[in-house]
């Protein structure tokens, strides 16, 4: 028997459908997924009720294990058990500190290292994708079940101090895991959202985020409905792992050990991490282990000793903190509160040092492990369009490191300075230095030092086809555009002769769309139907989104168009609707692009109107066409 739904008079039977979106904290040590349910952000637990998924992937015995089962393999199969893979994202072998202590069989590859495992050579992007896939499945099981709904997308967090290579790698990993990335969000900004909304905070706040492998400090101004990042700084290779490593070195020295096997190194590192955690609450703790040589280790470490051996690690977080304050143009007493984020902030000597610097007790009234995921979920909920218009908030974030180009003598010409609010674009003109020069090579770098050698190389490309001219006559305009994800696109154009030549680069580690598609295909193990079904579904979703958005735009702002324009748009939409009902995903894609072209001018005019509305306080009646 069919049940009839009866609605109150005036109430629609189909209320605005809630779109499922999640926030993911892809951490060095642990990862989490959260969502907003009935207006409240919640972390989604696994079957056994655990919120944290250890960021560990094990490739052995012909299968891939993620999380706790993988962690259990760490001591006995360290070579195939990848921990803290976040440290390798967008990094070459030379970039990773203490790499000699990693038990892995590294392969250097252009832009990003790879790891040889029993399951083949894996890039950090693929390893991270396994973690993200596990979180996606967890979310789908918890949220979708048999409801027939789809996950519209995810906000994935990254350390604020991540450079372009690391951000691009993270986005690629999410796509590889089958996630639609709504936005890459900086971790301290996510924490600020969660903290700010829960506490109705107003004023200037510092977010001190010391995670497993990264440190960020962000200074934000919170005011009604606006989260504005004033400055950010940090160290993308400093975190709780380094404290473990210090303690591990202490054990090695105290016990007089040398030439440890990878298995013994793993055992001692695990012991060191446990001891570090215990020392947050105890005056001393024991470290015991039996090595493969039969040697028995039994040492007692006192809290004071541990603080002493890691004092300079704590100091390494304070220098960037002062820099961020200075960049924000603020004195310490102008900061209203310091929010502590990340598991490593549980260490009392970290709390004490931060308290002394800011001359106030740091705020710890939220779970430092969960706050980033919760904030990401809140942002995902806004981006998915689940909050009524006017009830959203605005997030203004910045780039953490300056972006520039190499000039003569190995010097960097900065084009976009650090702490520029995104999205941002800037152009700079360059010229040729030889008569008749027809090509010019460009080297894009990121960092705040003056020498190219001290900055990170992002991409090299060549602009060809410059018409031969006298030296200094060519006008090559190089434009840097950073989008709302903090990702860079560079284009160059020779303009003086009217001949235009342009190129857009993706940083060198980046995967092309084709590569991602290929990896996705491989992961489906030649199940062609799946790949096709997935491509078709993706295009259908895009088509539906386009039809829905265009029709609502026509309802609201048809007066911005002449009759002929309206007719053209309607005709193209009708074609799109017809194609979306069939099964040719390429045809749908082409038609989506056509609709994009014909609605371009309409989009521009609508944007102009909304700017006017914003300025005139929504006084629509006073706005002329």
């Amino acid at each position, binding site marked *: 028997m069919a049940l009839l739904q009866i609605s109150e008079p005036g109430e629609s039977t189909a209320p605005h459908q809630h779109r499922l979106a999640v926030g993911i904290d892809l951490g060095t040590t642990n990862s989490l997924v959260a969502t907003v349910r009935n207006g409240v952000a919640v972390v989604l637990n696994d079957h056994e009720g655990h919120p944290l998924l250890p960021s560990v992937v094990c490739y052995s015995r012909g299968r891939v294990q993620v999380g706790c089962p993988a962690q259990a393999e760490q001591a006995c199969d360290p070579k195939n058990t990848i921990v803290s893979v976040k440290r390798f994202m967008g990094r070459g072998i030379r970039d990773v500190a203490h790499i000699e202590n990693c038990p892995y069989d590294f392969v250097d590859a252009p832009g990003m290292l790879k790891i040889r495992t029993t399951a083949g050579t894996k890039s950090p992007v693929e390893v991270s994708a396994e973690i993200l896939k596990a979180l996606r499945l967890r979310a789908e099981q918890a949220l979708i079940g048999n409801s027939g709904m789809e996950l519209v997308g995810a906000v994935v967090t990254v350390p604020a101090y991540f450079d372009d290579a690391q951000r691009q790698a993270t986005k690629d990993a999410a796509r590889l895991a089958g996630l639609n990335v709504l936005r890459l969000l900086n971790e301290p900004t996510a924490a600020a959202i969660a903290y700010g909304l829960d506490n109705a905070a107003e004023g200037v706040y510092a977010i001190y985020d010391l995670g497993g492998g990264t440190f960020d400090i962000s200074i934000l101004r919170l005011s009604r409905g*606006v989260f504005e990042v004033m400055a950010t700084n940090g160290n993308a290779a400093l975190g709780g792992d380094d404290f473990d490593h210090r303690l591990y070195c202490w054990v090695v020295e105290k016990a007089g050990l040398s030439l440890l096997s990878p298995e013994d190194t793993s055992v001692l590192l695990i012991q060191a991490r446990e001891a570090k955690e215990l020392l947050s609450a105890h005056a001393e703790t024991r470290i015991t282990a039996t090595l493969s040589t039969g040697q028995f280790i039994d040492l007692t470490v006192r809290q004071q000793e541990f603080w002493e051996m890691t004092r300079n690690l704590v100091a390494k977080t304070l*220098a960037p903190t002062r820099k961020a304050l*200075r960049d924000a143009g603020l004195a310490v007493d102008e900061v209203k509160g310091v929010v502590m984020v990340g598991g490593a902030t549980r260490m009392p000597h970290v709390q004490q040092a931060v308290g002394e610097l800011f001359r106030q007790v740091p705020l710890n009234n939220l779970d430092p492990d969960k706050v980033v995921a919760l904030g990401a979920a809140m942002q995902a909920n806004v981006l998915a369009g689940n909050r009524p218009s006017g009830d959203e908030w605005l997030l203004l974030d910045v780039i953490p490191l300056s972006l520039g180009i190499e000039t003569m003598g190995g010097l960097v010409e900065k084009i976009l300075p650090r702490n520029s609010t995104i999205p*941002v674009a800037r152009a700079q003109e360059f010229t040729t230095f030889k008569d008749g020069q027809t090509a010019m090579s460009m080297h894009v770098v990121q960092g705040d030092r003056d020498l190219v050698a001290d900055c990170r190389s992002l991409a090299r490309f060549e602009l060809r086809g410059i018409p031969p001219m006298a030296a200094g006559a060519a006008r090559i305009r190089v434009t840097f555009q950073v989008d709302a994800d903090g990702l860079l696109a560079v284009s160059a154009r020779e303009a003086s002769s009217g001949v235009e030549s342009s190129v857009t680069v993706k940083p060198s580690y980046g995967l092309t769309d084709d590569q991602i598609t290929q990896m996705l295909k491989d992961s489906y193990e030649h199940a062609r139907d799946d790949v096709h079904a997935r491509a078709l579904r993706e295009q259908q979703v895009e088509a539906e989104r386009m039809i829905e*958005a265009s029709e609502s735009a026509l309802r609201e702002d048809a007066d911005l168009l002449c009759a002929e324009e309206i007719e053209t748009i309607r005709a193209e939409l009708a074609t799109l609707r017809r194609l979306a009902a069939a099964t040719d995903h390429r045809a749908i894609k082409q038609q989506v692009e056509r609709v994009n072209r014909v*609605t371009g001018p309409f989009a521009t005019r609508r944007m102009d109107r909304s700017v006017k509305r914003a300025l005139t306080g929504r006084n629509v009646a006073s706005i002329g066409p």
Partner: protein
Amino acid sequence: MSDHLTQNFFELFGLPERFQVDGEQLDRAYREIQAAVHPDRFVNAPEAERRVSMQRATHVNDGYRTLRNPVRRAAYLLRRHGVDPQFETDTAMPAAFLVEQMEWREAIEEASGSADARELDHLSARLAGELKRMYAEIGRQIDERGDFPGAAETVRKLMFLEKLGMEIGDAMEALED
């Protein structure tokens, strides 16, 4: 239909075209416009709208950055009045001003050489007062007298002082490390 990308930044934020601007009004207008055009509002929109949104938000950020900072705001106004501030080429400054600059530099070097944080703080406060005086001067030159060449010279002086501010900051940072 006017195109906002070609509109001048004062019109964009609904402000009178003057050097002296109401900072709060600028902040408010910036946030209101950004709330309307920011890419976060168009995540689910078709490609065409997402593209326009990124262009607009980029332009609005550029305008805010230009008007928020006194040196950039003054330079922008000068260019709009056909005066090239000649920041890079025209370095001829009055001798008295250059002598003053040397004195500032010596004071900073001395304070940082003797690791005197208190003196650096003191210099920083004195510099802030000096900057304020110059902002007022540029305001009179541009808004009241329409003396653009005169304002251009004050702006060039201002750039020297901003550089001093950075040096004081660097010296403070060096003491902290």
